Structure formats: C-alpha cells, structure tokens
C-alpha cells in the first residue's frame, strides 16, 4: 500500500546532520550505581545526540528513522517491526540506526516526551526510554503531570532521578530537539514515520516489515552487499 521512493534533496539534508557519530559511554560505574545525567549542557547534548544511534559504527549502511512519540503510526511500526530490524540489520552489523525527532503540530505532548528520551540518552539510556515512551503512550499523552511519569520510568531503567529531573525541567536538550525538527522540515518531510535507508532510499509511512526489508535489501544489493 505504501511505497518506497527515492528523494535526493531529502537524503542530502539528512546526511548533513552530522549527528550521531561515535559510541556512547554511559556514566555508570557499577551495577549498583545509577545512570547519571551530566550537569553540563554541552555534554548532555553530545551524549544525547550520540545515544540515539545504535549499531556498529563501521556498518556499511545507515538507516534513519524520523519519528514522533505521539504518532500512532510510529507506535504501530515500533511494535510490529523494530525488534525485527534490530535483529536483522543492527545487531548483525549491517546497519547503524539513527532516530530523529519530528513531532506533528497536533502533538504538543510529543515535545516533552522527546525531552524525556534525550535526557535519558544523556545518561546512556535512550533506547530503553524510547521503547517505554512508545509502549506507554496512552499513559503519558493524557497525564496531568507527564514529567512525573517520565521520572518514575527513568528510575525503572536505572537512571538517577535527581539529575534526570533537572535535565527534564530545564529544557536542557531543547537545541537538539529544534535541530532535529528543522532538519526534517528542511528536508521536505511532512509526516511520520519516515525512513531514509543508506542515504539513497526514502520510505514513507508505517510500511509492512516485508516492504521495509525489501527496501533495505535493495540498497544492500545495489552496493554488492549480502542480504540477511
């Protein structure tokens, strides 16, 4: 139903983001110590930026997901396909996976949710919080105090709540959120989820895993790489 389409202008903009290089080193010393969000904003931004990338830095292709925590189709894709993509392409070393935030204008609650994910990322726990936000969207999107919920869930995944709360309540990751939004907007993206595979193929919408796999494999084949 949905289809993969190429879009050079879009792909160029995304590839110029320059975000998400390197490997996150969580501030976490032993199993008993919590993951701490650093106090310095520059450090928070660097760590949050790197934390939303997963996979081997030497992987031959990159997959970029442009997403919105409050978008039901992003949630659907997360539930149906994210684990399969992880297993097929990320854990196998074929792809690095980068997550970009692009909240729909009708989703004001998505912004604090991104803050929750990025602050968790600064503590080295982006992906566990990312999963929680998609899986518990019905709880936080109507909550009187979503920040309180985010803190509670941060504690569940081992984050130091005090440093996390300071990050959340002071818009520390706002520059990263705005940079993401502007990049997606400049790239001409109008809806989520949206994917860019290997900087050469764009996929619009919550496509089936079959279609997603076909698009990724076509990029691998075009580069003379093996498909999983």
């Amino acid at each position, binding site marked *: *139903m949905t*289809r993969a389409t190429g879009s050079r202008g879009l792909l160029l903009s995304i590839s110029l983001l320059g975000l998400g290089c390197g490997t996150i080193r969580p501030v976490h010393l032993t199993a008993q110590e919590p993951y701490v969000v650093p106090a310095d904003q520059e450090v928070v931004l660097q760590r949050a930026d790197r934390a939303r990338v997963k996979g081997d830095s030497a992987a031959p292709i990159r997959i970029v997901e442009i997403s919105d925590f409050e*978008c*039901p189709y992003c949630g659907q894709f997360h539930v149906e396909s994210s684990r399969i993509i992880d297993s097929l392409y990320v854990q196998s070393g074929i792809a690095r996976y980068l997550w970009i935030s692009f909240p729909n204008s*009708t*989703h004001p609650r998505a912004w604090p949710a991104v803050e929750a994910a990025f602050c968790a990322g600064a503590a080295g726990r982006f992906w566990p919080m990312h999963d929680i936000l998609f899986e518990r969207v019905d709880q936080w999107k109507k909550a009187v105090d979503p920040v309180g919920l985010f803190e509670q869930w941060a504690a569940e995944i081992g984050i130091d709540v005090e440093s996390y709360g300071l990050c959340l309540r002071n818009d520390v990751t706002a520059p990263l959120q705005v940079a993401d939004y502007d990049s997606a907007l400049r790239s001409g993206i*109008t*809806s989520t*989820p949206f994917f860019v595979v290997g900087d050469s193929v764009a996929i619009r919408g*919550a496509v089936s895993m079959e279609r997603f796999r076909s698009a990724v494999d076509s990029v691998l084949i075009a580069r003379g790489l093996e498909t999983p």
Partner: protein
Amino acid sequence: MLTEGDLAPDFELATDGGGSTQLSDLLGKRVVLYFYPKDDTSGCTKQACGFRDYQAGLAEQNAIVIGVSPDGVASHDRFRDKYDLNFPLLSDPDHAVAEAYGAWGKKKMYGREYEGILRSTFVIDAEGRIEKVYSKVKAVDNPRQVLEDLSS
C-alpha cells in the same frame, strides 16, 4: 471489517490530478474515507455529489472527504470534472486498501456471486483511529448521515 477504536491502516494511493495521498499525512484532521465500486455509475455519482454538496458542513467539523475505488486516475479525473467534485478520489487498482479496511468481498447481483467493493464509509479521527463505520451503505443517504453524525 475494522471496528471503532482501531488504528486506521495507513496507505499511500495515487490521486486524481496526479500525485498521491497518504493517510498518515492527514493526522490532525478527521477523514471521511469512503469506498465505492465504480466512477460515474448511478449510485456512486449520487454518493459523490452528496459529499460534494455537504463539503462545507463537513469542513466545519474538521473533516475532509476522500473517495477510493479501483478505477484508475484518468477515470477519476473524468468523474471529478464531470460533476465538479471537490475532494480527492484515490485509485486502489489492486483493491489492497479496500481489503485492509474490509471493504472488499463477495457480492451478489442478479443471483450471481462475485467479489467487489462493499460500499462502506469510515470516519477516522484526528489521531488516525476509526471513529465510526458505515457498512452496507445506501449511496444516496450516506453523505447526509455522516454529516449529521459528525455534527451531533
């Protein structure tokens, strides 16, 4: 058939006049998505003209209308021009979207059974969830009924 509260299946289909329409692009608006059998036939024309005439009232309810049939874009263009239709008509040639919505199935005409579009209308809320389903739709009454329900 989908039921109220289900996430409406996303799709991207070619539209009259060129280009395509993707459902997930329309989050934030209510969508009246109606499946009809064939352009420029008696029932379908009445239904399309009804939605055309109630367009303003539906817009007041933050709703936009989208028609879907297996006809091609060129046929949709002619149908739109002939009746001044003021909403998009999408082409679903392999009826995959109709099937995803449960709007494709067995029908009977003159005692003969065949597969085709089951005339049905879905109101999708601003968050992409099915708000109301109209199955076994009467082409003439459906547009007014949808407007009345959305306005109540």
